[in-house]
């Protein structure tokens, strides 16, 4: 019984984690909120460093400022009723306890109930020149703006697909940066067709159209059906060479490229926690299973937000609260049935919308075929596309862990968090399977690099 008395633990202080914490606090619990960042908000509503530059939220988040502010305030309001652990990395989950790293020391935190709101990072596929200085991910470009108050270049080309493509371009333009163009991999027709589905959520649709309209009104060229040819430059990128929808090769000068193909969930902790995974067609990824309330396959472990399937910040807020309600219910505490019903309804509508969103921004699967054999795909270990294709072609590797063992792709600092999307595509397309046919990398602790010195700096649980 004493186990059930442990305070709930929430990993991640983004929209999902904050709304979960808020709901638990309202029920009289004092959750532990562990977050890697110095300030709450997550990636999407990331705050500038304390005492750094000051920019109004309207400039930092644009149309999203109101939501960002609400999420920030929600956390501020419960700040003294949660055990908040900023600047803390969860590096392992084992046998009902998390291992935390903060201020160089490791600490083991047992839990009976755990909400994983671990968020997402950019999904990228390489193209020739992608390792040139000046080429950034979309998410990275956005973080530079929100967190460091700087732009990745003076004249930036935005490439890829996904809602972030237009959002970040808009935010850059708004910050006074020249946008060299938006290079969308999605054919125009596909987008127009999918827009019909999006009418289920007119607000989000309006926002998306607003970005596009706003960019056009400011003279930003928007190209559909694009594929990258290469990023050019000697010391750093000075042009993006691309192929238009008619197959014409074109060149746009720029001093930075921001690119991404949607987001990918950070699932390593769910894996270490023992959650069962399933392949998700929409996200083109293996995701931890969760029911509508956010319960995983492991009792006491809940999943909320983009960390277990990409649905965006609004859904994350709802899912965070919903997971907290499930947790409360499982602890035998009263929950308001009407609120549960309302959240379930709204989450179901978002799920439907999300399906049309992935139709509007389809993953450009053929991109992987154009990656030249000598293009580096794993930057940590310097592994080329050709090396991965070779172990597939020669029959040595028919799944991800084997490809990793034989080529080292995914063995470096990032442990495959950045490159495995590429390895999946290269392997599966060489083998002629779908992306679900080559398995997924097994998570191993530490999920991010752990200082060796932490071994001598163990803190007892407070």
């Amino acid at each position: 019984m004493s186990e059930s008395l442990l305070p709930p633990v929430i990993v991640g202080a983004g929209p999902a984690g904050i709304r979960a914490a808020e709901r638990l606090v309202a029920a009289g619990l004092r959750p532990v909120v562990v977050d890697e960042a110095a300030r709450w908000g997550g990636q999407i509503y990331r705050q500038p460093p304390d005492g750094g530059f000051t920019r109004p939220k309207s400039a930092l988040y644009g149309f999203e400022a109101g939501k960002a502010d609400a999420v920030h305030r929600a956390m501020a309001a419960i700040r003294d009723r949660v055990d908040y652990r900023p600047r803390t990395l969860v590096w392992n989950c084992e046998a009902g306890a998390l291992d935390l790293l903060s201020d160089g020391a490791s600490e083991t935190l047992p839990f009976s109930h755990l909400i994983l709101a671990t968020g997402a990072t950019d999904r990228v596929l390489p193209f020739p020149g992608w390792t040139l200085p000046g080429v950034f991910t979309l998410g990275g470009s956005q973080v530079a703006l929100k967190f460091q108050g700087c732009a990745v270049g003076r004249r930036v080309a935005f490439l890829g697909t996904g809602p972030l493509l237009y959002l970040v371009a808009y935010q850059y333009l708004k910050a006074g940066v020249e946008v060299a163009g938006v290079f969308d991999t999605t054919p125009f027709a596909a987008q127009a067709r999918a827009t019909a589905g999006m009418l289920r959520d007119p607000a989000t649709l309006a926002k998306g159209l607003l970005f596009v309209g706003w960019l056009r009104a400011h003279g930003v060229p928007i190209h559909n059906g694009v594929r990258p040819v290469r990023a050019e430059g000697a010391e750093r990128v000075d042009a993006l060479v691309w192929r238009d929808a008619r197959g014409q090769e074109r060149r746009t000068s720029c001093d930075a490229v921001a690119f991404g193909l949607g987001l990918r969930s950070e699932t390593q902790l769910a894996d270490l926690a023992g959650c069962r995974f399933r392949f998700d067609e929409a996200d083109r990824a293996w995701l931890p299973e969760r029911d509508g309330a956010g319960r995983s396959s492991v009792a006491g472990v809940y999943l909320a937000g983009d960390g277990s399937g990409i649905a965006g910040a609004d859904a994350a807020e709802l899912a965070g609260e919903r997971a907290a309600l499930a947790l409360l219910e499982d602890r035998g505490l009263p929950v308001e049935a009407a609120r549960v019903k309302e959240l379930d309804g709204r989450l179901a509508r978002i799920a439907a919308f999300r399906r049309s969103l992935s139709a509007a921004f389809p993953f450009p699967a053929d991109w992987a075929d154009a990656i030249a054999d000598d293009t580096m795909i794993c930057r940590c270990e310097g592994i080329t596309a050709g090396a991965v294709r070779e172990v597939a072609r020669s029959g040595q590797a028919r799944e991800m862990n084997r490809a990793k063992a034989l080529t080292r792709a995914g063995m470096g600092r990032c442990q495959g968090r950045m490159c495995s999307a590429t390895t999946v595509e290269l392997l599966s397309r060489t083998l002629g399977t779908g992306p679900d046919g080559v398995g997924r990398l097994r998570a191993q602790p530490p999920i991010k690099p752990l200082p060796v010195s932490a071994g001598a700096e163990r803190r007892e649980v407070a």
Partner: protein
Amino acid sequence: MRERIECDVAIVGGGIVGGSAALFLRQAGLSVTLLERDWCGAKASGVNFGGVRRQGRPLEQLPLSQRAHAIWGRLPELLGTDAEYIRSGHLKLARSEPDLASLIDYRERSQGFGLGLEIVTGEEFRRRWPALGDRAIGGSLCPEDGHANPRLVSPAFARAAARLGAVVREQTPVDRVEKDGDRFVLLSGDVLEVRARFLLNTAGAWSRRVAEAFGEPVPLESLHPNMAVTEPLPRFLDVNIGVEGGGVYGRQVPRGNMVVGGGRGFALDADRARPQRDAVLTLMRDAAELFPQLRHAHVIRCWTGVEGYTPDRNPIVGPSRTTPGLFHAFGFSGAGFQIGPGVGQTLAELVTTGGTPMPLEPFRIDRFTPTA
């Protein structure tokens, strides 16, 4: 429709022992079918520390180990890859006078096995390995020992065997094995039936089932050596390092990453294991003490594997005591990587000639059976 394969030798387990046995049997012209439930060389053979070390082994293992040493020297010719094998030397450190004394004692006892051990202490020790911290007072160097990349070596044996015509079936668990007259019969689901005159049980931690099927129960226990690797660091260490009395071991790979091992992981189930937090943190602390260069480095990954251990930490190698034509080789107790190809060659020899000059008495499968 169940596929049927008739062959001379069936091998259960595609690790470094089974893979090398398959290779040497094919070289001798026998037909071979190798069945592997996972991928060849993906278990303990492929995820071990990568030390290619004779020094420190019990003396009774040294003949097999020397035989293996000769095979390691021919890797490119046998496998078509050097698998990052380097004869860097293996340096076993002493942290105290008694530890140094036992290293000297081992050198005396192992004279005549060809290890060429060299005890280095004091000024010369500091001069030759200035990168090692103050923790060690000296060590014993085995100049021709070294290290290799197990992920590359172990699968390569089965692959080389396949190139010579061995039938290698991965993702093929053996569900039933029995002897029918003078033939062994192996079944994998209702997909595959293999019939063979000889059977090699080289299934590592999973070997017990095959042994038990022929009335040879063994006290085999699965344990999980704990390992970690750092990000690449400037080169500071050319030798493979062990420590007298155990604890921690380490090697720096050509790319610069430092691989260290020590302590034990835990079992997730019969097939899978994970590093254990206390073992990981203790390993990091001990490794940083031994290698001061690691103090500002990061561990990027920890891992472990599933390995079969015997009570006396010697492997089981040799003929079955119940069933003619069956040979066992498993239970290497965390030290099978270097010796593996020597054992594989010996198994091939047993099958083809009916005997071997290798002394296998200490590795009899029935040595644990309580005498009635």
